[in-house]
């Protein structure tokens, strides 16, 4: 039995092919999905998507959205997605440092929330760009 994964963002299709297994980070923790999974509709957090293909793990940074799993079809709709291999680790690290500095500087509720979100996005990108983790 094969599992089909498609990852869609408003601007493009990031992934659309068969996979063996994925690990998806949802709002209530990570879930692993193998073929013949029960139908699930879930919110997707800002986090990493791990894809097993030919016994190799690939990573992808997801920026929050929604996933539907059913009938061996996984559809992930997200605001933005980037393949780990497409992210420049140095650039991601720099963005993370800037985001960390911004969190310290942020004043007021709204700014703090926004800075924290930016920090989480930056952290996810750094994690996704790191092939060992």
């Amino acid at each position, binding site marked *: 039995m094969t599992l089909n994964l*498609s990852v869609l963002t*408003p601007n493009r299709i990031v992934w659309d092919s068969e996979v063996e297994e994925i690990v998806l980070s949802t709002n209530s923790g990570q879930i692993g999905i193998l073929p013949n999974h029960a139908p699930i509709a879930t919110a997707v957090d800002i986090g990493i998507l791990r894809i097993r293909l030919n016994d190799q793990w690939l990573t992808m940074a997801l920026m929050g959205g929604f996933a539907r799993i059913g009938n061996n079809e996984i559809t992930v709709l997200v605001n933005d997605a980037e393949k780990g291999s497409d992210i420049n680790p140095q650039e991601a690290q720099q963005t993370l440092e800037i985001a960390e500095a911004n969190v310290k500087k942020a004043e007021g509720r709204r700014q703090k929330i926004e800075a924290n979100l930016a920090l989480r996005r930056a952290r996810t990108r750094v994690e996704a760009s790191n092939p060992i983790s």
Partner: protein
Amino acid sequence: MAMAALRREGRRFATPLISPNPANVFRSSLIPSEEPVLSGVRCISTQVVRNRMKSVKNIQKITKAMKMVAASKLRAIQTRAENSRGLWQPFTALLGDTPSIDVKKNVIVTISADKGLCGGINSTSVKISRAMHKLNSGPDKENKYVILGEKAKAQLVRDSKKDIELVMTELQKNPLNYTQVSVMADDILKNVEFDALRIVYNKFQSVVSFLPTVSTVLSPEVVEREAESGGKLGDLDLYEIEGAETKAEVLQNLTEFQFSCMMYNAVLENATSEQGARMSAMDSSSRNAGDMLDRLTLTYNRTRQASITTELIEIISGASALEG
């Protein structure tokens, strides 16, 4: 000195010809029959045609340029519209598309262009919105409009001003992107109470055909009710809902995400249709201008030829009269 006086006299004599005063016009209309100013009249008529030809030529240049601009914009936006199509299909698979659902608070989101000169796409949107309004009206029902774009606003303000909840214009000042559209969608969700949102837009099929389309987005409460009662959304109950504390919370987020994705697609489709419609409208008007120019050239040449012929006959007959 005498010549100058004569010229001045002549000028004074000529003025009634142009004066709009009816009494003078009456006199001037008598003058040509008495005196041989026919050649002057002929000159004026060719002058008018020449001016007309010039203006038609200019209009043709403008419409051609507009067509080129629309064509290049179309190419850029068409690929983006096609890419955004994948986004709403999963939602339709999960939540279904239920244009016929019967709810109390309907909000019709009419999407139109900010500029005219693009065929009938704006009036199509407005017409469909009015039809939706009529279709969903009832004793205890509420219908509201949310309008995107200058043109639909201008048309709907006239007869249903009291139903308009929100107007947004100048969407396309900056190039359309998802962030901008989702901010706008958030604005709509925050300011408008609804059970069902109906997005009316022109779906782009090809450069010459646009399908007026209605996409329905239901509020989380309606989705839950329908799913539980096993009505039109019975499929949703097969799915386990995960990711947050309660099902309602997930559905709330889901609806918001669905609406912004639908809006993004609708806005892009409509913008693509606008450019396509403008391109074909401008193409046909350049062609019309060409036809008109051909006709005017024919008239102009014929008149010129006729006047030359008449002059030749006058000269020849005068000469032969002298000889004979």
